């Protein structure tokens, strides 16, 4: 019986990773700012899915669960890691210039601005959804989005922004 469950979960796993793998890694990257740690965290998230995930009512709930686990794992990771004297930056030189500038600027933002911006502009979450995911009042999310945009505008200039 346990083997059957594992096989079914395994099939689910492949689908879930195909569907959400990049989102999970991208969100983790927003937290930890390097691909390798982001991949490690993503592995842990999907192992947790394999071992613990309940049956979901719909795809939205499933994604919400996965993203919540991702946020929790990232926070746990950052709590445990020691601050490095001079952390090695991720080498993003392979990105086209505009993308590089923007990503670089994002990574230099404080996490409290960076994460809402990522969830808003990449995942397309509403302020309410971001508020729930980050366990943060909606008004705070709103002001951090605005503040984060302002900081990016100062850093990058108007070219990266549209009204």
């Amino acid at each position, binding site marked *: 019986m346990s083997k059957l469950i594992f096989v079914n979960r395994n099939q689910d796993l492949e689908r879930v990773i195909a569907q959400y793998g990049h989102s999970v890694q991208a969100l983790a990257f927003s937290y930890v700012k390097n691909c390798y740690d982001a991949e490690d965290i993503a592995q842990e998230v999907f192992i947790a899915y394999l071992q613990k995930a309940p049956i979901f009512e719909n795809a939205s709930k499933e994604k919400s669960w996965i993203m919540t686990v991702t946020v929790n794992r990232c926070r746990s990771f950052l709590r*445990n890691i020691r601050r490095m*004297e*001079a952390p090695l930056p991720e080498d993003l030189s392979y990105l086209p210039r505009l993308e590089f500038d923007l990503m670089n600027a994002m990574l230099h933002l404080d996490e409290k601005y960076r994460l809402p911006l990522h969830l808003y502009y990449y995942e397309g979450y509403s302020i309410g959804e971001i508020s729930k995911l980050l366990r943060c009042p909606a008004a705070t999310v709103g002001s951090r989005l605005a503040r984060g945009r302002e900081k990016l505008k100062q850093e990058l200039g108007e070219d990266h*922004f*549209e009204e």
Partner: protein
Amino acid sequence: MKNNTYRDAVDHLRFSDDLYQNVVKRARGSQRPRRIVGVFVATVLITVLLAGTAVGVNYVVSELLDKQEVTVPVHTLGTQKDTFEDAQVMHFSVTSGLPGVNTHYMELAMGDVATQYLFVRGLLCSWASTYYRIADDYRLEIVEFKTTSGWVDKGDDRYTVDPAYRYYERDDGVISAYHGPLPKNEAGEILINVYCLVRKKPDNIGDPAWPAYLNVETGQIRDAMPQLSPEDFEGRICYTRRFRDGILFTTLVNEGAKSVHNRYYWVDETTLQIVPIELPGKGFEFVYQDTMYYQDETGKLYQMDDHFTFHLISEYETPAMLGAGLLLVMTTDGKLGIYDVDRDMTYVFNDIEVTKNDLMNYGTLRRGDKIVLLKTVTNWELMGTQITQVGVLDPQSNELRLIEFDNDLLVTHCSWLADDRLGMIYQRGQRQYLCIYEFE
């Protein structure tokens, strides 16, 4: 913010394509190392000293990560500075998903081949001239800590001189640790930049080091190798070892993406005279029982005489490598074997087939009756050698137990440590790890 630009940037981030395989592998747990012949008699206990969150790096290592917890105090230096500050103690606990590696180590690992050559028994050395010793309880102790006292200025260069003029060696000949004054010649000079000292420019740490004589009484410095031009000696000094009552060292030069040994030199420790050694082409040298052997790219094997001249002693159709009295050979039917010089015996591994090209990628280590077989590839990004497979041979039973590493895991160095422990430096992404094997 322009939606498309950020979305494109995130979509273009380079994550691994193996997420699903890695998750499945971790979820299913570890597997026993593959056995080639029979069962290895000794029990292998693996202890991970430093580990980040990369739990899935090696299925053998991960087996024990859940069972072992070791706290490792590490001393590190302030980096990116022209002077050394007081060490800062950092503690790591080693279980799955725990803290990463400090920046000092990572920076040393990235492309720093010198560090690999200085990874000696019982001692892990750093390029920035701080040397660590792995104690029995796995604490990393600083063996020597450079201070800012004793700076000697020569024009634009500054020489760091250890106040105690100490240098290091280990008992099988490689320079590692030594307590006592450096040897002086008749003029009262010591030889610097060979004995664990580096020449530094204010804006660069780890600059190429040029041997020089320093008169410790007057502070006068003179060139130890005026006959060479900067082009002849562009590289960093590395691979120093004791050899025939003197010191053998090499220089390492970057040629594009890779580092190559440039030249070999020997220092007469009585006179401190430096003798350049002409090598018979490109290849590898090994010292066995105070005799240097050299194997070139075509497989020819040479032996060096007392006058530092190489003589051809053997020519193989297929390459073979000599290390610690062991000669790697390929049998007529293409099987891999090890010829033991001391015992005049050949161990043939029936399950390992090799080609002429493959054979150049094997090396051996020896400690008493333990023989370790290493399969390597050249990793140009790391400017060094990546170990892909480690096998431990029991010469009594002729059984070989192999351990393979994940493709993501770059094992860059393997060396015997104190008390017959086998140590490996490996790297995953930007993190460097030290893994120690104990044999019961």
